[in-house]
C-alpha cells in the first residue's frame, strides 16, 4: 500500500509558550513519523497540542510567545528546525502544505476569495518558473480549483468575501488553496470541525479522493476517532503534549493498549463521532505546572509508583504498535 521510507519524522519535540503567569510547557517530547504515501491520523482532546505540533513543522508558530525548547523535525532527512530563514520557503513550496483548523480565521477577511487564491496560485507558478500569467488564466485556474472541491458556482465565490460564505464553502476554499499544487505532504488540521455531519462527510471524502489522486501523504488531525477509522492507515493518540500510543488503525481499534486510548474508545459514539473525553474522569492538566512523570497519571486508573516520577518512553508492542505506558515495559 505504501512504501516504508519516512517523509516526516518528529523527534522529541518540545514547545512552550511564554505567558504572563509563566511558561506553558505544552509539547513534552512529541514523536511522530509519517511515511511516504501514508495517511495518518492524529487524535486527541482539545488543547493537547495538535495544532502546535503542525505549526512547528510549518515554522509558523507565533514567536513570541512560542519557543521550541527541544527536539528535531526531519523532512526527507533535513532538519527543518535548523533551516535558515531564507531556506524555509523551499519546504513550503511543492513539499508541505496545510489546511488550518478554523476556516473562518484562515481566510483573510478583507480580501476577496479570488484575490487570495489567485495570488497563491501566482506564487506557486512562479516557483515552477512560470513568471507571466494573464489575469484571465489565473482566474480560470482558481475557478477550476474550486470546482475540483465540489464548490457550486465558483465564479461567484471568487468575487465574495469570506464572511459571505458558509462554513462548508470556506472549508472548500481552504482545501483548494492547499491543493493548488501537488505537494508531498498535507497537514489537515480538523478540516471539518463546526460543519454538520453530511457536509463533513462530503468534504472528507472529496479531500481523500484528491489526496489519493495526487499520491500525497496526509496527516488528519481530529477530535474524532470516527473520522480516522475510515480514512487513515495509522493513528497517533496524543495526550497533553505527548504521543501516548500509535498503531495501525485496525489494530488500534481492536487492541488499544494505553489506558487513555481505551477510555477514548469506550466513548466513541456510534454515529456522530463526537465527545471524546466523556469516558475519562478529570480534565487535561494545566500546562503551567503539568504533572511530573506520566502526564496522564492524575486521571489514570492503573497508576503505579513509577508513573509519578518517571516519564514513560514509547515501548514497542509488536511490529506496528507503540505505547508510552509503564504497564508495557520499564
Amino acid at each position, binding site marked *: 500500500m505504501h512504501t516504508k521510507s519516512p517523509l516526516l519524522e518528529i523527534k522529541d519535540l518540545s514547545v512552550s509558550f511564554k505567558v504572563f503567569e509563566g511558561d506553558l510547557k505544552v509539547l513534552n517530547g512529541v514523536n511522530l513519523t509519517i511515511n511516504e504515501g501514508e495517511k495518518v491520523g492524529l487524535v486527541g482532546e482539545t488543547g493537547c497540542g495538535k495544532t502546535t505540533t503542525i505549526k512547528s513543522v510549518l515554522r509558523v508558530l507565533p514567536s513570541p510567545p512560542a519557543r521550541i525548547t527541544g527536539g528535531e523535525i526531519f523532512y526527507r532527512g533535513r532538519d527543518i528546525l535548523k533551516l535558515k530563514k531564507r531556506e524555509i520557503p523551499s519546504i513550503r513550496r511543492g513539499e508541505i502544505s496545510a489546511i488550518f483548523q478554523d476556516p473562518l*480565521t484562515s481566510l483573510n477577511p478583507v480580501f476577496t476569495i479570488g484575490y487570495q487564491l489567485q495570488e*497563491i496560485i501566482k506564487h506557486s507558478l512562479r516557483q515552477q518558473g512560470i513568471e507571466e500569467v494573464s489575469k484571465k488564466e489565473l482566474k480560470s485556474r482558481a475557478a477550476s480549483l474550486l470546482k475540483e472541491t465540489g464548490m457550486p458556482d465558483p465564479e461567484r465565490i471568487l468575487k465574495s468575501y469570506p464572511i459571505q460564505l458558509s462554513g462548508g464553502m470556506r472549508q472548500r476554499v481552504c482545501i483548494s488553496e492547499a491543493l493548488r499544487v501537488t505537494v508531498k505532504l498535507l497537514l489537515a488540521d480538523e478540516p471539518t470541525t463546526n460543519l454538520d455531519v453530511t457536509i463533513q462527510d462530503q468534504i472528507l471524502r472529496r479531500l481523500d479522493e484528491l489526496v489519493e489522486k495526487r499520491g500525497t501523504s496526509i496527516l488528519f488531525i481530529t477530535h474524532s476517532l470516527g473520522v480516522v477509522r475510515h480514512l487513515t492507515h495509522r493513528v497517533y493518540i496524543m495526550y497533553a503534549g505527548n504521543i501516548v500510543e500509535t498503531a495501525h488503525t485496525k489494530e488500534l481499534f481492536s487492541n488499544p493498549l494505553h489506558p487513555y486510548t481505551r477510555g477514548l474508545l469506550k466513548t466513541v459514539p456510534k454515529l456522530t463521532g463526537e465527545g471524546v473525553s466523556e469516558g475519562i474522569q478529570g480534565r487535561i492538566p494545566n500546562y503551567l505546572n503539568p504533572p511530573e512523570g506520566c502526564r496522564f497519571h492524575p486521571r489514570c486508573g492503573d497508576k503505579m509508583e513509577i508513573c509519578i516520577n518517571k516519564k514513560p518512553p514509547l515501548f514497542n508492542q509488536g511490529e506496528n504498535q507503540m505505547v508510552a505506558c509503564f504497564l508495557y515495559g520499564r
Partner: protein
Amino acid sequence: MNRRSRVGKVRKIKVTVEGGWVFHTLTFSLYNIQEYSMLKYIGLRLIHSLFVLFGLSLLIFFIARVMPGDPARVALGPLATEEQVQKLREEIHLDKPFPVQYYYWLRSLLKGDLGRSLYTKRPIVKDLNEYLPATLELVLCSFIISLVFGQVTGVLAGYFRNSWFDGLSRLVSYIGVATPSFVMAIFLLLVFSHILGFIPAVGRISIILRPPPRVTGFIILDSLIAGQFKVALNGLKHIILPALSLAVAHIAQEGRVTRSSIVDNIQKDYVATHVVHGVPTRSVIFKYLLKPSLIPTVSIMGLDFAFIIANAFLVELVFMWPGFARYAVTVMLNKDLNAIVAVVLIVGATFAIVNLIVDIVVSFLDPRIRLQRRGG
C-alpha cells in the same frame, strides 16, 4: 555606488508592486459601488451632515447672542456715543427678535456672504480666504507626517514586537502623547533654530520671497503649480517644524494603535495560511497584514484631525503662522458675532467632511462594513 543605485531601483519596483493592493481595493470597491450603493450612502451622509451643520449654526447663533456683553458696544469701544452704538445695533439687526436675525443671516449665507466683522469691518469671507488655507495646509501637512511615520513605526514595532525597537518606540510614544504640542513647538524651535543654528523659520515663507500666484491658497502647492521650486522648498522649510510639533502626539498614538492591531492579527491563522502557501513575507506584511490592521487606525483619524485643528492655535502662535486658529481665538475674544458663527461652522464642516472621508476609507478597507450596510 553602482551597486547601491541598483538596489534602490529594485526596491522601488517592489514598493510599486505592494502599492497594487490599494489600487485593487479602490477599483474593486468602485466596481461594486452599485452593488453596495456606496453613492447612496455618501449622499445620505452629506444630507445628514447638512442637518447637523444647520443645528450647529442655530446653537452657536443663539449662544453668541446670549453671551454677556453688548457686541455693538465692544466693537465700537467705550468712547462711542449711545447713538452710534444704537445705529450699529440696527445695522446688524440686533434690535430684531432672534428668529428674524437668524433669517437675515441665513439668507445672506445662501448668497455666500457670511457678513462683516464688527471689529475690522472686513467681509468675513475675505478673512477666511486669507487665513483658512494657511491652517489647512499646516494641518494637512502634519496629518500626512503622522500618517506616514505612525504607520511605519507601528508596523515595525508590531512585527518586531518585544524587541528593543518596540520598547524604544513605546517609551518615545508615551513622551510624545504626554507632551502638549506647543511645548513641542517651543522645544523644536529651540533645538533647530538656536542650537543647530538654522535661521529661525517663522511665518509661511521668507519675507524676501514673493508668494506664488494664488490658486489653492496652499503656498507649497501653488508654487509647485507656478513652477517656482525654490519658493516651494522655502515653504516646506517653514512648515516642517510647526507641522512636526502638531504631528508628534499623533505619530505616537496612531503608531501604538497600529502596533497593537498588528500584534493581534499576526497570530491569526490567515497570516500563517498566506505564509505557508508561499506568499512572500513582504506582501504578507505590507498587504495581508497591514490592510486589516489599518482599520482601527483610520477610524481614530477623524478625531485626530479635530485635535490637530484645536492644537494648531498655540503652535501658530509660536511659529507666527498667519493662520485660522489664531484668527478664531481673536474673534472669540472680541465677541465678533458674525465671525464667531462663521468660525464654528467652518470647523464643524471640516470635521463633518473629514469624518465622512474616514468612513468611506474604512468601508473601502473593510468589506464587512460595506456588506452590512447593504442591509444584510
